[in-house]
């Protein structure tokens, strides 16, 4: 094994050698630099191998041959090895990345780079506090030197600000060190830690405070970090990458970790508080940023804050400390370095300028992977880490910390995903001809830079795999659906036909394989998710080309759904939940104008997911593999809270009222075949979650309020208001989206009834809603595709042009409105029986009224699109493409079949459900004997109804056609028009504001209170962010004063502990 000291020796020696080389031996100098970095990396890697695989133990290295306190000693353990690798690799890759700049500046720059890396390695390795100081100062000097590499001239002033701060830091550090030494008589961390507890009182603790605060300052905590942000903004991106990943994210936090050995437990809360404050505040302030590198800077500050917070919680993390802290730290390092490297390709500094990435799928994949890593999404290490962290925090009842961490994560995710939205959706900036000379190109694809970025990408996925292996749970990479979804990333180059066929085949096959494992409830959901998804995918055949990005996203969503159905424990459930959220987000984002809607979708979804996470964590109380069935045994004081958190989380997905504002835009703006997927299928995931929840936890009471009763009201209100809002939409897809909200309200209501019929009704809605909403979205999508608009009043009279779409919509609206004989009626019938056996009477009033209201918007949908007056520009329109029509016709058939024999599916579910409501089984399920379905109250025979109606209908129709066989077919203006004639179709088609009188009477109910609430909240956050960031004045002196004030405040705050 190579002695660790060689890492330092090589760094230092090579740096020295570089100074001796001749000025123009650039190649040799560069080779030396790279060579030494590689050899340093090799040493670190060898050690890591030693610890990780060969089971080695921590090694102490004594430099001067004597033990401390007489000489400096270094320590090499697994943590050090990993951090060294991070530092050296970030240095190595950055050196490759900025080779051009290095060549320009020559050997001196390279030696400074080496010194920088060496110093950081030293910080990590050393166990001597004065040595720590020396290495920090070296790092400062090297930083100042490296800042000069930047092409941004303002890096100079940033460097000077940094020097001012580092002067202060060195003052604090030195005073701290000397008094610590004075008190303890040693400079060795471990010795001091061993000695000191009682001597640390008084002057000792002050001395320690000085050291800690100095080292903490190097980790750039909020608010004493203006200088760091300036560096991030102005430095060469490759240096920022190192500065963020290696210096702040690895070396400084590890120094804090080491110092805490001295301070002991009592200092942990201080670190936690500073970390949390940085995490939340930095992410909040980042909301108002427009400069990309500064945004990344804020994000760095936040992430480092999170790591500090984790360090502060090490007292409860136990064995998981390294796993958690490491997961977050590595995710941060790789992702942030990667993002900075990408920023080096971009010519302009506005966040929206990143839209130039759009044409490069690999770069987009890199970006996505990096922000997913930062946001803690599966399968990346930060996901496992956050999961474990949250579990432990919840178990230890540190709920405030938990709340702040989740809040910060949500804020971070919002600006990161907003940024991603910019990339995919904003106008690509165009370069003016005359600007080419004096400005850098918008996007420079330099091969070696790309190589560096892609190696970070590879590392991120490698780490994802590694953390999956290390975690206490199954590696998510072993989940078949996920692998299937990811494999589409490799297939991006083939045509849609092949990919689509593969996708459909895969989904059907997976369903067939898994079929024996499902219970009846799961069969229903799995059938909708997988088979239903496959049917909708048929519509995707209408797209030509390669459709890059669609299949990985879609398959990711379906993978999540497939995994959700079979998930048995909370971890897999949650991971599946996150997968389907991300997948659907990407799909929604594909829509033309969907940027803001996709953003609000992902924010709401992640918010909901965090609630679910917290709920599971509270429920698990430290149990590693928390079986979902154990939700039933959660103890009394926590149970209602768990219920509440989970329920709200799931209701975010079903878009219950108050949490619904993301849905209309997201569903309406999505692509033609995506809308049915996210509406017809995705919404059911929330219902599935609710079913799992309710099935296990049953009725819960909080402060004497029965939570299912509250849900009942929410469901009723959702149904009512969702339908009411749908009435006033001009946009057909938006109308359908609001209708989905309403329909989900029904289902929620049914579930909250907590009786068997209510559940049966909810399931009936699940099936029906899937069929008819998918069908309607497809037909409306097809129409919108042909007409080029979604505004219904711009259409009209399309029945002649698109008869099949009309039939689909007609059947669809009959089914939705619940008019016999189609299957919607079954849902209504079960609903009536369900409420009869429930003791709740008031909320169902709202449900009653929402039925006829649904009728309003449904009629409007069919009338204003297909009936009325055909417009000039639609006179030659064609029927929707075959592949969009095909699924619709399948749905029509399915609706008919389901209308006639609803028992086919439902009777099994009914039987399956009855044990769950055994205690109230006096009023139980339905009797499915023969043709008639009977309940305790009434009866219903679908087949005779269908036959009777069909016969009457057919007879009358035949007769009317016979009588009018010679009727003159007239055209659209041949109408009685008060003795005048119509002027233009546009002025004759009564469609816009169709329900004006209804708006007069009921409009007061649809004041957008909820939207206004969320908008105000967002605006408030942005205002706060914008206000508070002005606090970073850009003046180095102000920063210094801020640092001093920070020190004083932290000291006072600490005294409180």
């Amino acid at each position: 094994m190579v002695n660790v000291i060689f890492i330092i020796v090589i760094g230092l020696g090579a740096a020295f050698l570089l100074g001796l080389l001749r000025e123009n031996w650039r190649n040799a100098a560069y080779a030396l630099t790279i060579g030494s970095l590689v050899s340093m990396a090799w040493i670190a890697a060898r050690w890591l191998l030693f610890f990780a695989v060969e089971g080695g133990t921590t090694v102490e290295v004594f430099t001067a041959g004597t033990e401390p306190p007489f000489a400096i000693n270094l320590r090499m353990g697994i943590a050090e090895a990993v951090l060294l690798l991070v530092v050296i690799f970030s240095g190595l890759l950055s050196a490759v990345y900025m080779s051009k700049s290095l060549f320009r500046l020559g050997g001196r720059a390279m030696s400074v780079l080496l010194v920088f890396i060496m110093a950081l390695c030293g910080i990590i390795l050393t166990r001597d506090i004065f040595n720590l100081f020396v290495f920090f100062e070296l790092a400062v000097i090297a930083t100042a030197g490296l800042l000069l590499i930047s092409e941004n001239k303002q890096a100079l002033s940033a460097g000077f600000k940094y020097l001012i701060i580092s002067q202060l830091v060195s003052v604090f550090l030195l005073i701290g060190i000397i008094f610590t030494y004075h008190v303890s008589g040693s400079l060795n961390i471990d010795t001091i830690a061993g000695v000191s507890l009682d001597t640390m009182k008084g002057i000792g603790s002050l001395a320690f405070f000085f050291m800690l605060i100095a080292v903490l300052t190097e980790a750039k905590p909020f608010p004493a970090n203006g200088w760091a942000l300036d560096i991030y903004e102005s430095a060469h991106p490759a240096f920022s990458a190192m500065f963020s990943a290696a210096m702040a994210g690895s070396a400084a936090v590890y120094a804090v970790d080491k110092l805490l050995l001295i301070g002991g437990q009592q200092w942990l809360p201080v670190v936690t508080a500073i970390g949390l404050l940085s995490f939340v505040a930095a992410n909040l302030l980042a909301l108002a940023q427009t400069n990309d590198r500064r945004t990344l800077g804020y994000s760095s500050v936040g992430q480092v804050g999170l790591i500090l917070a984790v360090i502060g919680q090490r007292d409860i993390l136990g064995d998981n400390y390294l796993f958690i802290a490491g997961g977050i730290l590595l995710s941060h390092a790789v992702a942030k370095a990667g993002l900075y490297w990408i920023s080096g390709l971009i010519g302009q500094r506005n966040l929206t300028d990143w839209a130039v990435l759009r044409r490069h799928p690999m770069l987009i994949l890199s970006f996505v992977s990096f922000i997913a890593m930062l946001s803690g999404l599966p399968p990346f290490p930060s996901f496992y880490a956050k999961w474990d962290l949250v579990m432990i925090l919840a178990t230890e009842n540190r709920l405030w910390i938990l709340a702040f961490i989740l809040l910060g994560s949500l804020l971070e995710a919002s600006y990161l995903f907003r940024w991603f939205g910019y990339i995919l959706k904003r106008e690509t900036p165009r370069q003016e001809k005359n600007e080419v000379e004096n400005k850098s190109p918008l996007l420079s694809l330099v091969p070696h830079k790309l190589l560096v970025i892609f190696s970070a990408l590879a590392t991120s996925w490698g780490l994802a795999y590694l953390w999956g292996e290390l975690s206490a749970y199954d590696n998510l990479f072993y989940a078949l659906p996920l692998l299937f979804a990811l494999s589409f990333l490799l297939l991006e180059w083939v045509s849609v036909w092949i990919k689509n066929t593969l996708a459909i085949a895969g989904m059907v096959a997976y369903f067939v394989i898994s079929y024996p494992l499902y219970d009846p409830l799961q069969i229903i959901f799995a059938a909708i998710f997988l088979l239903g998804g496959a049917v909708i995918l048929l519509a995707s055949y209408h797209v030509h080309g390669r459709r890059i990005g669609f299949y990985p996203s879609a398959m990711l969503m379906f993978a999540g759904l497939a995994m959700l159905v079979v998930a048995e424990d909370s971890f897999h459930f949650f991971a599946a939940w996150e997968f389907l959220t991300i997948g659907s987000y990407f799909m929604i984002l594909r829509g033309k104008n969907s940027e803001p809607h996709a953003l609000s979708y992902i924010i709401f979804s992640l918010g909901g997911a965090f609630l679910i996470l917290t709920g599971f964590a509270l429920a698990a109380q430290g149990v590693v593999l928390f079986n979902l069935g154990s939700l039933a045994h959660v103890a009394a004081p926590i149970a209602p809270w768990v219920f509440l958190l989970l329920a709200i989380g799931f209701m975010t997905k079903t878009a219950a009222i108050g949490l619904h504002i993301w849905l209309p835009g997201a569903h309406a703006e999505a692509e033609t075949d995506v809308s049915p997927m996210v509406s017809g299928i995705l919404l059911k995931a929330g219902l599935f979650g609710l079913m799992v929840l309710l099935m296990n936890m049953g009725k819960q009471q909080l402060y004497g309020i029965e939570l299912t009763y509250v849900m009942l009201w929410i469901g009723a209100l959702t149904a009512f208001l969702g339908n009411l809002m749908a009435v006033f939409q001009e946009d057909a897809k938006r109308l359908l989206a609001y209708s989905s909200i309403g329909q989900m309200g029904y289902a929620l209501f049914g579930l909250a009834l907590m009786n068997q019929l209510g559940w049966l009704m909810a399931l009936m809605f699940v099936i029906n809603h899937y069929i008819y909403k998918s069908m309607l979205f497809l037909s409306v999508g097809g129409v919108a595709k042909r007409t080029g608009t979604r505004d219904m009043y711009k259409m009209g009279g399309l029945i002649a042009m698109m008869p099949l779409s009309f039939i689909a919509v007609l059947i669809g609206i009959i089914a939705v409105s619940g008019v016999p004989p189609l299957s919607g009626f079954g849902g209504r019938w079960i609903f009536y029986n369900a409420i009869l056996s429930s003791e709740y009477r008031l909320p169902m009033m709202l449900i009653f009224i929402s039925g006829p209201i649904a009728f309003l918007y449904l009629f409007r949908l069919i009338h204003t699109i297909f009936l009325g007056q055909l417009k000039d520009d639609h006179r030659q329109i064609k029927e929707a493409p075959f592949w969009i029509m095909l699924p619709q016709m399948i749905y029509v058939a399915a609706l008919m079949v389901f209308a006639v024999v609803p028992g086919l599916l439902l009777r099994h579910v009914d039987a399956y459900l009855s044990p769950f409501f055994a205690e109230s089984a006096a009023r139980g399920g339905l009797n499915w004997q023969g043709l008639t379905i009977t309940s305790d109250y009434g009866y219903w025979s679908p087949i005779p109804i269908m036959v009777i109606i069909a016969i009457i209908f057919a007879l009358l129709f035949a007769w009317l056609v016979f009588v009018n066989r010679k009727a003159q077919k007239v055209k659209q203006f041949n109408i009685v028009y008060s003795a005048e004639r119509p002027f233009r179709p546009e002025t004759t088609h009564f469609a816009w504001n169709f329900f004006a009188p209804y708006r007069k009477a009921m409009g007061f109910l649809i004041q957008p209170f909820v939207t206004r609430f969320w908008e105000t909240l967002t605006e408030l956050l942005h205002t706060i962010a914008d206000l508070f960031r002005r606090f970073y004045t850009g003046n180095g002196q102000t920063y210094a004063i801020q640092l001093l004030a920070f020190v004083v405040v932290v000291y006072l705050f600490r005294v409180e502990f």
Partner: protein
Amino acid sequence: MQFEWIQIPYALLTLSIIINFGLLMNAFVAKIGARVGRRVGIPIYQNYIDLIKNYGLRSSITHGVMFYLGPVFRLTGGIGLLMFVPTIYGSVMFSNFSFAGDLILALYFIFFGTLGMALGAGESGHPHAAIGVSRGLSQVTMAELPLALAVFSIALQYNTLSVTEIVAAQQGGVLNWTLFTNPLAVVAAMLSFLGSVMRPPFDVVLAPQEIPIGPPTEYHSSYLALMQTNRVIFPIAKMVIFMNLFFGGADNWPVFFVKIFMIYMFAVFIGVVFPRFRVEQSIRWFLIWAVPIGILAVIVV
């Protein structure tokens, strides 16, 4: 109860009785109105003549498939509604096809005709038709609500959704009628009834002066005749439900005729007294007066 072939002639018999009764009753009501206004009024057989004339018109035009289907839907809705509810209590002959479904089926089937009519009217491409539909649908959403509440209330009261059983529970004296056992529900339902018979004050849907008769503006000849037939059947079918639910049903035809007539006259009386509401006014009226009574009925029962 199951299907038997004999039920078909029975059902046709019921249908013909109802049609004739309806034609005569409508004329009779019109006659009463005329007499109140000191007019002679239409001949009692006038509705037959109108029907024959409309069927006998020589020419007709069509605006498209849905234009045909509109009246078909409408009349199917009327006949179907009649067929799904037992007409005469205790009579096998006149229980129609009520084995197919219970009260809920009937209530939801009411919309079948409405939907078809609206579609047919839409196909005609006439803005007045669309305006009429808009008004009608807006109004019906609120007008149906008290009825739904009342039905829920009596379903709770009798603990069943079967019409036959509800009627059975009301036998044995006038005081057993829902009218007396659950007056709130009946009040709510009867107020709702006002909103669904297209008589003043809730007839803005047809509004002959401003949107010439609304949805059926374009309908004529045999289409119109079909709809006229439905206008005879449908209110009676609906009133049959009311009669069965609230007024003790009928165990023979004379009682049936009297009860239906009385229920209808209720709407007529109100109609001749009050002027017409605008849509938003009628919605508010239902919301303020009828719905609370319905809610009360649900809570109290």
